[in-house]
């Protein structure tokens, strides 16, 4: 076991000593700060005072109504915002001012960037050893290839968790500095499929992160498999990113066919089963999707293992 921790340590050193890894964190950092400054300077966030929150909300509603008349295209969207505001008024809840947690929630989309970076790392972690030639020194140690493979895969997952946590933590810090503290566990009103609900921001963040991580896990594992089979990181990155971006189009292209529900990308978004959403296709259930995901996952991992442990390391 100590041995395994050493292997993980080795892999993390190799990941984090690379300049390209630092570039990823700097990019995410700049985007977060940029978004924060953008929101701050355009003032598209609200603060509410204890004695004047009703007036603020009513004024907000009025301006939303005016806006709707001017631009009928956004009327529907504004209407839902007005309904949310009315929920506060009707239930006599003081809305929380915009702050660190809500900023984190808005930055959830940055997880697709985390997916992208994880794909890059997963694609490189095996292929690079072949490219550098270091695979020959790595595999002549008293450690089985299976163990090295598991250590490398675990390190990819660790990297993605660290990066996702970085996005969360750094967003929170930037949010705190720019917008202030909005409480330990702020609740806001959001429009869900079952109507307007009063929900915990942290809860929303966790479910949002959770659903994104499933997609991330599948694509990273896919990139890792391609890397193990073809020993080429460019191919693995290219294929994984292409599928990540085109996955939904692929599903919609085949949506008329019965077998479309067996496509991986029809099942990666598990949020289709919660919040009263309608599943993509008839006959799909949460159990079905989870089963499909597990089957794909096992295939990816098994192929990675077979190709990495059974194949010769030859000099070409």
């Amino acid at each position, binding site marked *: 076991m100590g041995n395994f921790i050493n292997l993980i340590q080795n892999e993390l050193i*190799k990941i984090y000593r690379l300049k390209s890894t630092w570039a990823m964190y700097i990019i995410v950092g700049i985007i977060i700060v940029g978004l924060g400054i953008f929101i701050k300077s355009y003032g598209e966030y609200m603060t509410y005072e204890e004695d004047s929150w009703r007036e603020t909300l009513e004024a907000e509603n009025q301006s939303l109504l005016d806006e709707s008349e001017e631009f009928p295209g956004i009327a529907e969207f504004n209407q839902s915002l007005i309904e949310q505001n009315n929920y506060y008024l009707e239930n006599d809840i003081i809305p929380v001012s915009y702050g660190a947690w809500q900023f984190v929630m808005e930055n959830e989309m940055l997880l697709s960037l985390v997916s992208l970076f994880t794909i890059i790392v997963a694609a490189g972690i095996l292929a690079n050893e072949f490219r550098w*030639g270091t695979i*020959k020194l790595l595999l*002549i140690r*008293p450690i089985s290839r299976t163990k090295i493979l598991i250590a490398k895969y675990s390190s990819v997952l660790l990297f993605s968790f660290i990066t996702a946590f970085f996005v969360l933590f750094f967003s929170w810090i930037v949010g705190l500095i720019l917008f202030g503290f909005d409480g330990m566990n702020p609740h806001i009103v959001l429009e869900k499929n079952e109507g307007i609900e009063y929900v915990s921001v942290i809860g929303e963040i966790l479910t949002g992160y959770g659903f994104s991580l499933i997609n991330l896990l599948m694509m990273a594992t896919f990139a890792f498999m391609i890397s193990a089979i073809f020993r080429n990181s460019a191919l693995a990155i290219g294929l994984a990113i292409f599928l990540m971006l085109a996955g939904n189009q692929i599903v919609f292209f085949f949506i008329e066919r019965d077998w479309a529900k067996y496509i991986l990308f029809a099942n990666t978004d598990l949020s289709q089963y919660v919040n009263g959403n309608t599943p993509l296709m008839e006959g799909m259930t949460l159990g079905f999707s989870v089963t499909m995901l597990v089957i794909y996952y096992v295939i990816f991992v098994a192929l990675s293992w077979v190709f990495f442990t059974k194949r010769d390391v030859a*000099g070409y």
Partner: protein
Amino acid sequence: MPEIAMQLTNVSKRIGKKEIIKDLSFSINRGEVFGFIGPNGAGKTTTIRMMVGLMKITEGDIHILGKSIKSDFKQAIREVGAIVENPELYPFLTGAQNLKQYARMIPGVTQKDIDEAVRLVGMEKALNEKVGRYSLGMRQRIGIAQAILHKPSILILDEPTNGLDPAGIREIRQYIRKLAAEKNVAVIISSHLLSEIELMCDRIGIIKNGELVATQDVRENTSSTTQTLLQVEMEATPLDKALEIINEKTTAAQTNNKITFEIEKEHIPALISNLVEQNILIYEVSVTKSTLEDKFFDLIGENVIG
């Protein structure tokens, strides 16, 4: 009886239908420096890759201190330190960080072992520089340090003096001899530089088209071939008088300002003293073609090199 460090028994390697290595059998003893030579593409690297488990053995087996590399990989490989082909290291890590990577993978390797290995290859100074900035010679030294960290019983080095300057080559050669003599390590060296193999090794195996065509004891070879003719090149003045004297013994030819001739080894001292007695000034005498080279070319044919 010398203790056998590595034993190859009927090792064959097939890729598809092509047989790359054919029924290779030989053994290497502890404390012995074994040279592995052959033209490019003969199967040296494939054999070395099978020895360290990077390639699977199609038929036969390789035992390291009695443990099969096939079925007892972890126990067998623990006894092996190796550089396979080039000393490839992580270019974005320093020499020290590279060595630590490998130290972490083998139980029982301490910082003291790392320091000792670094001292032996003389890399203390550049240890904290990134490997990407190293010269090939420096990478070669870190490569060797990496191979000896865990004090292996068998050291496998592919072209170990590649990229080293003459002083470095001598240092490594002495070091390899010392390892074999003092630590009883079996050293396997592959090279296509015959002179190097001759200086470093006790025994050589010549491989051609995946077959072991001969194993040869280097010292035995030099003593048993005294009867064969050596090709000698000499620089002396006056040239014509020297030619005349040499021609009494053998047929000499003049090329540029040098004399070349063939002579039996045991006759060389007498010839030289004869020349000296006749007041001929000798600047240089050298054997241009070694017997090992002859043997090598006899076995593999000159044209297949390259």
